[in-house]
């Protein structure tokens, strides 16, 4: 039911990507991490996991709720579903703001029993509705602090137009907040070298141009999804980043929006030369699988950094799942 799409190995990290339309997620996990959201695609992972398949489960419910009642509805459902796929009562992290990234990550790591940090433990992380710093931070932590973890990352693709005003369909955030390094992904910049920024572009062109304008990196490259989650998405992304592409004129890499492993392979090749003669900074503004691919590339030697532009707020609307769901099997 699951088709293996890509496979890659580098610096002791092995990863394979799979996609399916309807397949179940087989196997058992020592730890399962889920995120409550106003997007219905957040329900997919716990729906596809088998009963009692996660020994310790954690659900994060951010403090920020919505007036339209999505969270109220989906929080209840995800709690029910995660209870079914957990062998113990799920642990809940709540009442903390989505912006307290380090605080919430520390809370998650504290819940996990000490014994689970040992060798060869199996981790399941749902990325579908998790903000990027959370799943990337966890991935980096596991690489740094846990011996030989086996990680399954899950991502449900999306259909953005389905429940939105067409004008707003491709706009997910409002305003520029603070720029931060992703937790444990601050890299090891060499002061002798210039910076190369690799922008992983999404639909929000103001964020790419705004970031470029602030940091004025010495060199710029960009990644665009192609194929996208939907056929029209690559052109949409190009149109929405037109000013950035015209003004900055980066070298462009195209890669599958859903395939984190393909993205990792291509990024490694794309920045091979830059790694030796510049500091690398990834700027993930696009699909989550691209950010996972960039993160894997950063974790190989630990030198690139990953930057995150915190939005002032997120636009609240339901986002249903797209045609495919993906999982990435990662061994470190």
């Amino acid at each position, binding site marked *: 039911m699951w088709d293996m799409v890509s496979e890659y190995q580098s610096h002791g990290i092995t990863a394979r990507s799979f996609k399916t339309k309807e397949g179940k997620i087989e196997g058992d996990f020592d730890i399962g991490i889920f995120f409550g959201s106003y997007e219905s695609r957040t329900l997919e992972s716990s729906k596809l996991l088998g009963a009692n398949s996660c020994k310790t489960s954690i659900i994060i419910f951010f403090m920020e709720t919505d007036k339209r009642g999505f969270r109220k509805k989906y929080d209840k459902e995800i709690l029910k579903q995660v209870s079914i796929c957990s062998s113990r009562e799920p642990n809940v992290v709540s009442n903390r703001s989505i912006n307290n990234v380090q605080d919430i990550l520390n809370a998650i790591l504290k819940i996990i029993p000490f014994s689970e940090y040992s060798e060869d433990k199996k981790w399941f992380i749902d990325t579908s509705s998790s903000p990027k710093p959370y799943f990337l931070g966890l991935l980096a932590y596991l690489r740094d602090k846990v011996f030989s973890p086996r990680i399954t990352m899950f991502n449900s693709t999306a259909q953005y137009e389905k429940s939105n005003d067409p004008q707003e369909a491709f706009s997910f955030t409002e305003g520029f907040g603070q720029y931060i*390094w992703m937790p444990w992904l*601050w890299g090891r910049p060499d*002061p*002798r070298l210039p910076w190369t920024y690799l922008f992983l572009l999404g639909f929000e062109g*103001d964020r790419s141009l705004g970031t470029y304008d*602030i940091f004025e990196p010495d060199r710029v490259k960009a990644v665009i999804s192609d194929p996208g989650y939907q056929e029209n998405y690559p052109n949409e992304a190009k149109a929405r980043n037109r000013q950035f592409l015209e003004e900055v*004129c980066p070298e462009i890499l195209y890669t599958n929006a859903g395939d984190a492993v393909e993205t990792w392979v291509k990024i490694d090749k794309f920045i091979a030369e830059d790694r030796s003669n510049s500091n690398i900074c990834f700027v993930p503004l696009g699909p989550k699988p691209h950010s996972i691919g960039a993160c894997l590339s950063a974790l190989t030697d630990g030198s690139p950094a990953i930057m995150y532009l915190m939005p002032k707020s997120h636009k609240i609307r339901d986002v249903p799942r797209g045609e495919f769901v993906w999982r990435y099997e990662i061994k470190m």
Partner: protein
Amino acid sequence: MLNHQDDIISSRFEMNPYFYGRSEQEHGQILFVPNRIAKWITRKPLCFLGVRGSGKSSALKLLTWDVKWNVSSIKTTGSPEALRFLQNFKHIGVYYRVEDIDVPLWDRWNVIEDTAQRYFGTYIDLLYLDLLLDALICIRRISRSLFLGRVEEKEITKSLLKECFRADMRPRLLDLSFMALREIIADAHQTIRQLVLQDVSEEEIKQTYSVIGPGSLLKKFGDQFANYYPKMADWAILILLDDCNFLKKWQMKVLNTAVAGCRKPITYKFSSLAGLYPTCDTMNDDRPVILDYMDFEPLPSHSNSFATGKTRVKGGTQYPNLANRICKARMEQHFSKEHIEKLDHNKLLGPFNLEKVLMKKLVDSESDDARDFLDYASTGKAEGEGPAITKAWLSKKSVREYKLPIDLEEKEAKRIERQIASRYSKKWNHVAGMALCKEYGFIFPYSGFRVVLNLSAGSIRELLRVMSMIWEEAGGSLSEFIKVQPIPQEIQTRGIVKAAEARFELIDSSIISESGTSLQSICNRLGQLFSSCQSYPYILTTAETASISIRNEWAEGDVKEIIRKGIGSGWLLKREENGRIFVALHPVLSPKFQISFRNPFYYPEPISNKEIIKTLFFGSDQEANLAIKNVLEGRIYRYLKRHKTKLEASSIINEKQGFLFNSNPIKE
């Protein structure tokens, strides 16, 4: 499985030589060496101040060792004297740009400020020692000037190791070489950064690294250099730090302490956005401020109107020459010399003749009012006669009329007339042009190289952005661009206005107050206010108002923060003087609001009430409109007060406001 086709595709967009950022990425940077460089490479610490894109980073990069020894991808251009000076001057400069994303992480480090300052100072010293050792290693590969015997190198290495690490923490190096020392030093500053970002406790970091006083390690390096390279006793070691405006006050104090305590051959050269140098204080009670130890250099204009107090010094690079050279260098990177050898951007865009372009606008106009006015201006109805459009308009509106004293001798009368006319025209002609265009519904004919220079306000980056828009409007190819010289005014105006609109769209529109305002909406409000100030009847009060003036103490809290944000992102300009703050929009936005392209600080509008500024910045649109109206009424009131009695003025304001807008203006 993966298809390993070549997925890397170069940009499909056509070549525009002025696109900012493009040249640096594709061909390596070309930096212009100004003749003033001799003033920069002195032993006295120096801080470059300027707006975004004014060439601060370029100035610092020019002073680096790799530019001097021609080993960087940066190429230089400039007068033969300047280039010769750069090559001959004896200096080793090492450059580092403040990582502004690291600054808040240092700031969040959960230790007392004193500890944070000590480790920040240690980190910076180690980082620069890393860069200096790297410079020595690299220069020795290409020049024998820095050659040292094994024994001397060992002695320097030992002495620096001793300075860096406490005895019980000192690494034992089998190979006492610069190379091995550099690796240890690089690892040390990297680890300090990692520990700080991981928010470790003071105890933990103390167990790993000991503290070095701000600048003391670099001082030690300088001493060793002077000692072991006696032939290079007259050399300077330049510590170049870019973008100090990102630093917090407590961090800047650490660096200022190093500056105040530095000695030959070490010297510091910083850069900061004008008006945002965090502080001149040091950590040292004996030398509490650095003002006496440091020079401030405005970039790039002759006298930088955005600098203040001691920082406002004469000098700076001649901007028009610099701009012309840079535009030409851009063209040279993309096109063959034969096409552009004689290209001069002054001639390409031509001069700006206000009267001529206004006349053309009126002649081309289909508006009856405009044609009537043209007749009025052409038939000598205007007092003083002559064809000058702005003079005729000012005369028709009775704005700042003047009369010559009677019974003067012809010679004296002419002298006084020239004197008055000079003051009169300088002050009022441009704003008359702006107001006239608004009255007849024209877009002001922004055109000419001087106008583009004014709009860029000393920012090469903005200049290139405007030029790139003119290039696009002119057809987007070299043949079209240089076909007619000067480029027709309409094309230039379209490009300039589009550049302003595109820049405006980039201003951060994220909501910053409950009423829904953003930096973008604040800029919009200021733009509307200044646009009104430069229209009739509000020009009766003062000409060319394009800034506001508020009391220093009102710029606190939210107001201070948003002004800082506006300056940091380059949309606002600030000037401080006599306890007041002057705030203006960056002139590149002027064409969007039909504001004069000239210096915005000529006639600041004083805001007399703290609440007005709060409302203007953070009120709802409706409240902000009322605040603007209030300011505009205040202008008229001041005008009337000057020319009428106070009572008459009040009564006019209160009872017959319509008079101001509908009937004939009040004569002086």
